[in-house]
């Protein structure tokens, strides 16, 4: 599992409404204070569910099942990790689902139209670049044009979904659907280096890179600062708008990459706005369940990974345990409430 993304040195505690100077405290207390309760908080229900499923279903812990879960979540994990940066920097991107679908359609259209290895290579590159461009546009309108990122990316997602439908007209031969079941392209999903699917590897690498960028680079610091206190960041010499645009660009590129990967996995594009909306929703739900604040300034990639995998694990478990689909929603909701409630409770305890 790719949850070992390095942990932030000092976990961001909730912003206490007000506090003063800490006099002196002894070493033990200082240590206890430093134990990342908030992190533990979400890790505990995650592990609890993991253990429960391992016991409840013999198939759960099988290499195949874990492999399946990770493989199918690779796209979402990539997007969610990048979207975490956007949130931390104080933005929000509601267009990732639409971008994901758009890039898949663009990539597929090129593969169908150009064909062969050239087509596949071109499709992959142009698909990812399309994501980058959309991300840049999102970033620019929500910073320089000062449109609230929520509306900016919502409106963008209408536009992108519209564009998707137009592009897909070119990807079809006559009446039909873009289908790219060609080996020149599908290796992207079918290769299994060291027994782990290529999408999983790609996701793993992207998560590590984004996690480390956030944790150990100046850019990462600027991302936290931009979201934590934009005015202070600006006065400290950080180009907040540039940082925010960069996070949007990263999210767009990630959505592009995920769209391309999932196209190779599927390998066809369902044209359905609801899928785009659901994806955006799932991504945000995972991020928030992981504990990253939508208000910006706090959060981490590893949290998002936990949040996304937590929900994915539940769905996987429902199927393995043969829980009637009619009851799955209720179970999911209750488990999330318990998990997040535990998190909230442990944070109150901290004081």
């Amino acid at each position: 599992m790719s949850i070992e993304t390095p942990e932030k040195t000092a976990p961001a505690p909730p912003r206490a409404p007000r506090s003063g100077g800490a006099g002196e405290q002894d070493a033990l207390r200082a240590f206890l204070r430093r134990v990342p309760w908030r992190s533990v908080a979400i890790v505990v229900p995650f592990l609890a569910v993991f253990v429960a499923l391992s016991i409840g279903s013999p198939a759960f812990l099988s290499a195949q099942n874990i492999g399946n879960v990770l493989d199918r979540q690779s796209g979402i994990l990539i997007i969610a990790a990048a979207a975490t940066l956007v949130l931390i920097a104080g933005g929000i991107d509601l267009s990732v689902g639409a971008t994901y679908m758009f890039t898949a359609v663009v990539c597929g259209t090129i593969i169908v139209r150009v064909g062969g290895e050239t087509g596949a290579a071109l499709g992959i590159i142009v698909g990812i670049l399309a994501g980058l461009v959309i991300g840049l546009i999102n970033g620019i309108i929500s910073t320089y044009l000062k449109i609230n990122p929520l509306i900016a990316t919502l409106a963008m997602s209408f536009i992108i979904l519209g564009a998707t439908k137009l592009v897909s007209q070119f990807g079809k031969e006559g009446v039909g659907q873009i289908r790219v079941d060609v080996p020149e392209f599908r290796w992207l999903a079918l290769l299994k280096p060291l027994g782990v699917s290529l999408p999983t590897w790609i996701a793993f690498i992207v998560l590590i890179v984004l996690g480390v960028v956030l944790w150990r680079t100046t850019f990462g610091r600027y991302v936290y600062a931009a979201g934590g206190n934009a005015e202070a960041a600006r006065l400290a010499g950080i180009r907040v708008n540039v940082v925010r645009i960069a996070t949007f660009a990263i999210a767009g590129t990630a959505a592009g990459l995920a769209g391309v990967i999932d196209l190779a996995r599927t390998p066809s594009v369902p044209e359905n706005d609801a899928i785009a909306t659901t994806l955006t929703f799932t991504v945000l739900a995972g991020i928030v369940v992981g504990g990253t604040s939508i208000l910006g300034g706090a959060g981490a990639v590893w949290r998002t990974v936990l949040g996304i995998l937590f929900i994915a694990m539940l769905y996987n478990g429902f199927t393995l345990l043969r829980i009637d689909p009619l009851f799955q929603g209720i179970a999911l909701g209750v488990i999330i409430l318990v998990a997040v409630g535990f998190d909230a409770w442990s944070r109150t305890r901290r004081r």
Partner: protein
Amino acid sequence: AADAGEAPAPSDDDSAAPAPTEETLQVAFISFAVANTYDEPMLAEIERVAAENNIEITVFDGNLDPNLQVTLVQDVIASGQYDGLITQPVFGPALVDITRQAIDAGLTVVNVDQILGDDFTTGATQVEGLAANVVFVPSEIGTKFGEQAVEACASQDLDPCNVAFLHDVKASAIGVALYDAFNAVVEGTPVQIVAEGETFYNPAAAQTAVADILTANADIDLIATSDQGLQGAVQAIEAAGRGLDEFLMIGYGGSAWGKERVSEGVVYSNVVQAPATEGRLAMEAMVDALRNGNNQGDIDPFADFPNNGVMTRDTADQFTGEWVG
């Protein structure tokens, strides 16, 4: 790459001869969802027949949202620009009232593909005054589907025969009707549903569901689901490193993809749906009603299909595969 299912040639000469000198008529088509592979051939046929009869079609995108469809019909009535209306309900009961209003407002209304009304077990018109009703009946599909499940299991003498059943949307009206009919047929046969999942008409979702089902159940014999579901199932089986021949598969939808798999023998059989035929019949009925004042009433789109509308390996080449899948 999948070849697009060619639109079936107009089966016979039109009942209403085109009369180019007649005035151009306006017909609104409230689609299920515009960007949808199942709907595309239907729309193409509707437009082809319309063009031949000097009729202009305006397409509205229901986008899988019944409330939106009601809204669109309201707007169509209010605009006063249309002579005819073709409905393809996302959710039959929701459109009943507004369709009545459209009829009262003087529009000629034809219903296509999906049930307009609340009874999903009959192809009979449920809204008085429809010029024609050209639908598939979910429970009939379910019955045929159940029969195919029994046959497929019998073909390999499986008793019990463990079935993974993937709903499209379990709680949907169509889903319920289809599943109930399926169950009614398989009751008391070796067919046993041991796993269920949902596809949401999306191969990727089906792939996920089937992967999990195969992980949890070592002994699945047959996978029963829609064509989109089967696409996902095939991906999942291949991804799991299992052989396609380890499983019986039956589908419904009658797509080009499904037809191909049936003729290859990968899929045991496929219960046909016929969007293009439906589109053609619906538009022809519309022309007939608008130009000649003839209401054709209930039309069974499967009337002319061979083998009771079921593709098997032997009969596959008698079918067209009306949509791509």
